[in-house]
C-alpha cells in the first residue's frame, strides 16, 4: 500500500507541474471559490455560458471593490461545500443556508439573503390563504424542503398531494388546474414567475421557516477572505448595489438570462446558441479521454508485465493494485483523490488532474488484468523456445511474447477505450466541465432536457464511432 501511495503522490507531482495552475499575481490575493453550477437565480450559466446569478454578481462586485481575484469552480452543491471543508478551495458561495451543523465546519460571512419556503397558486385562483386548500391537491417536487413542509401541514389544512420530478411539469400542472397550489424554495419560485410562469406567489414578503444564505470558508482558515467579503458586503448593501442585483434577477424576464424561446425550442437553436459550450465540453471530454487512454494503457501494460513476472512479490503487488482499483467505484475514487487526499498530502489537486489520475488508476487496473491474461494466453512453448535459443527473459518478452499477447488483446483495448470515453462523464461529479456537465448546465438553464440530452448522446455516439474507426485502422496497420 505504501508503495502505491508513494507512486500516486509522485504521479500527482509530475502532472501538477505539467498543467497550468492559474497565475497568482503577487499584488492581489487570489482565492479559489466554489459554487453550485445550477441553482438559479443564485448560480447558473447565462446564454453566453458565463456563470451568473445573485451569488455571482455579489461575489464579483465585492472582489472588485476589495481588491482580490478568484478562480470560480462550479460543481455540484455537495462537491462545492466539501471542496472547501477539505481545503481544496478557499470559499463557497452556493445559496448555502447557514445551519448550526454547517457552523461546525464553516465560518460564515454576513448572511446575505433571506430565503425560505414559498407557496404559489395559478394566477387568478380563488385560493387566498392556506385554509382555502381544504380538499384541494398540492403539487410537490420530490426531495425538496418545500415538499417536507407541505407534508408537515397537510393534516392541518386538509389537502391532498401529488409528486413531480421536474419543475416545469409541476408548474404546468398547477397552471392547467389539475392541482391547485405548490410549495418550494421562495426565490426559486419567484424566479420562475419572473421568467413568465403564470403563477402567483402568496407569501413573497414572509417566507415560511425562513433562514439565511451565507458565504462560507473553512472553519479557522481564511479570516482575511471573510473580512474582505464582509466589508465588501456592507458596502454594497449601503449604496444600494445589493438591492439592484437582487431586483435584476427577481425582477426581469427569463429571456434576459436564458436566451429567447426560439433558440431553445429546436435542436438546431440549442446547438447554435450553445455551440461554444458544447465545443468546450467536447474538448474537455476528448482531452481527458485521449490522455487517459494513453496513460492508462501504459500503466496497464506495466501492471500486466508485473503480473507475469518471475518474482512472486512483484506478481502479488500487481494483483493487489488491480484488485483495489478495479474494486473501487470510479466516483468514490474520484472523490477520494479530489476531496480526500489533499487534506492528507497538504496539496491542492486540480479537478482535471484528479479526474485524469482517477481514470488512469481505474482503467489501468482493467487494462492490467486483460494484459496479464493476454500474455498468459500466449503458448508456454514460445517462451521456452526463445529462452532455449539464449535470449534473456526481457528480450523474449519483448520480441516474442508481447507482440503475440498484444495482438490477442487488441479487441479488449478497443473496448476499454470506449469505456474510458464513457467513464469521463462520471467525472462531472467533481466539477470537470466535460460534455455531460455541460449538458447538465444547459438543461438547468433552459429546461429542454429531451433536446439537450439527445444532442449530448449524439455527440458521444459520434466520438465513439470515430474512436472505433481509428482503433480498427490502427489494428489493420499493426497486422500488416
Amino acid at each position, binding site marked *: 500500500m505504501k508503495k502505491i501511495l508513494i507512486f500516486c503522490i509522485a504521479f500527482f507531482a509530475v502532472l501538477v507541474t505539467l498543467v497550468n495552475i492559474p497565475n497568482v499575481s503577487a499584488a492581489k490575493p487570489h482565492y479559489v471559490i466554489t459554487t453550485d453550477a445550477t441553482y438559479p437565480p443564485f448560480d447558473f450559466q447565462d446564454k453566453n455560458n458565463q456563470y451568473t446569478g445573485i451569488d455571482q454578481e455579489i461575489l464579483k462586485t465585492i472582489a472588485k471593490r476589495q481588491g482580490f481575484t478568484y478562480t470560480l469552480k462550479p460543481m455540484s452543491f455537495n462537491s462545492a461545500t466539501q471542496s472547501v471543508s477539505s481545503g481544496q478551495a478557499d470559499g463557497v458561495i452556493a445559496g448555502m443556508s447557514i445551519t448550526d451543523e454547517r457552523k461546525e465546519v464553516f465560518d460564515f460571512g454576513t448572511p446575505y439573503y433571506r430565503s425560505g419556503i414559498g407557496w404559489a397558486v395559478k394566477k387568478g385562483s380563488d385560493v387566498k390563504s392556506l385554509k382555502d386548500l381544504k380538499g384541494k391537491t398540492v403539487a410537490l417536487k420530490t426531495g425538496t424542503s418545500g415538499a417536507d413542509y407541505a407534508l408537515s401541514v397537510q393534516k392541518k389544512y386538509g389537502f391532498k398531494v401529488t409528486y413531480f420530478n421536474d419543475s416545469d411539469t409541476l408548474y404546468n400542472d398547477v397552471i392547467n388546474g389539475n392541482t391547485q397550489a405548490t410549495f418550494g424554495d421562495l426565490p426559486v419560485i419567484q424566479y420562475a414567475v419572473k421568467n413568465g410562469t403564470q403563477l402567483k406567489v402568496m407569501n413573497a414578503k414572509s417566507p415560511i421557516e425562513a433562514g439565511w444564505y451565507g458565504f462560507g470558508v473553512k472553519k479557522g482558515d481564511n479570516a482575511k477572505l471573510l473580512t474582505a467579503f464582509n466589508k465588501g458586503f456592507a458596502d454594497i448593501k449601503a449604496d444600494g448595489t445589493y438591492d439592484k442585483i437582487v431586483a435584476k434577477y427577481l425582477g426581469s424576464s427569463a429571456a434576459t438570462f436564458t436566451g429567447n424561446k426560439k433558440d431553445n425550442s429546436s435542436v438546431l437553436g440549442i446547438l447554435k446558441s450553445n455551440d461554444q459550450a458544447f465545443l468546450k465540453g467536447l474538448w474537455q471530454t476528448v482531452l481527458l479521454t485521449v490522455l487517459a487512454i494513453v496513460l492508462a494503457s501504459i500503466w496497464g501494460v506495466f501492471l500486466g508485465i508485473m503480473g507475469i513476472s518471475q518474482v512472486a512479490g512483484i506478481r502479488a503487488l500487481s494483483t493487489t493494485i488491480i484488485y483495489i482499483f478495479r474494486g473501487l467505484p470510479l466516483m468514490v475514487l474520484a472523490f477520494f483523490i479530489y476531496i480526500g487526499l489533499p487534506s492528507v498530502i497538504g496539496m491542492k489537486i486540480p479537478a482535471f488532474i484528479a479526474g485524469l489520475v482517477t481514470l488512469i488508476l481505474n482503467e489501468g487496473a482493467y487494462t492490467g488484468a486483460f494484459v496479464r491474461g493476454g500474455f498468459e494466453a500466449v503458448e508456454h512453448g514460445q517462451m*521456452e*523456445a526463445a529462452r532455449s*535459443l*539464449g535470449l534473456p527473459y526481457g528480450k523474449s518478452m519483448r520480441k*516474442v511474447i508481447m507482440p503475440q499477447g498484444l495482438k490477442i488483446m487488441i479487441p479488449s483495448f478497443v473496448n476499454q477505450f470506449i469505456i474510458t470515453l464513457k467513464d469521463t462523464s462520471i467525472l462531472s461529479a467533481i466539477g470537470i466541465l466535460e460534455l455531460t456537465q455541460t449538458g447538465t448546465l444547459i438543461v438547468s438553464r433552459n429546461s429542454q432536457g429531451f433536446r439537450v440530452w439527445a444532442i449530448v448522446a449524439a455527440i458521444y455516439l459520434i466520438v465513439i464511432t470515430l474512436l472505433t474507426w481509428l482503433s480498427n485502422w490502427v489494428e489493420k496497420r499493426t497486422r500488416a
Partner: protein
Amino acid sequence: MSDAQAKVKVHVEKVNKSYGDNHVLRDISLDIAENEVVVMIGPSGSGKSTFLRMLNQLEMPDDGTIVVDGFNISDKSTDINKVRENIGMVFQSFNLFNNYSVLENIMLAPIETGKMDKAAAETKARQLLDTVGLSEKADVSVNSLSGGQKQRIAIARALAMEPDIMLFDEPTSALDPEMVGDVLEVMKNLAESGMTMIIVTHEMGFAKQVADRVVFFESGKIQESGAPKQVFDAPKNERLQEFLSKVMHA
C-alpha cells in the same frame, strides 16, 4: 566413441528432481562425449523430458551437478543465456514464433544475442533453409507450414546459433507418419556431420541407425545403457526387455 580421450561435453552427476511427492529423477549420472549421439528411450513418465530440459536449465535439479561445455549450470549464478547459445533445442510441438516469418524465425536469435549482424544472419538462415530443403518457404508465415516442415524449420532455427550440442525431445512424435522421414533425414545428416546430439525418441529404427549409445530410462533411473546392438539385441534389464517387446510389437 568409447575412446577415453574424447572430450566430455555433458557431465551429469547424482542429479535428483521431484515435483511435490513425485520423485521424477533419482540419482542420475551420465557423461556424454563430444560428437557422441545418445538416444534416450523409455516408457511415458519415466523422466526423459525432465532430464533433457535440465541440460539447458529449462528445469533446475533439486541436487547434484550438471556441467555443460565446462559451465556448471546446476549453479544458479552461471550466466545461463551464454550457455544456452551453444545448446540447440528442438521440441515435440515445434514452438516456432507465430509472429515472425520463416526466415525471421531463424534470424531472430543470432541478431538479438548479438552473435551476427542482420546480413550475416540472413545468409546463414538461407543456407540453413537450403540444408533442410525448404528454401522456397523463406517468406511464408509459419502457420502455413505442415508439421514436418515446421520441425525442419525449428531445427534450422536452433542451428542458426551454431550450437555444439543439440537436444531433441520427441521431434517426430507430433508428425503424420509420412512426414517423419524428412525430419529424421535432416537429423541423420546432422549426426554424420559430427554434432553432439541427445535425442529422446520412440523411433527405434532410427536409434539403431544413428545412435552411438542408447540409454533406457525407467522410473526416474537409467536402467541400462550401451551400444544400440547390445541394448536392442541383447537387453539384460528385465524392464528393458518388457519395454522392447511392447514397442516392437506395437
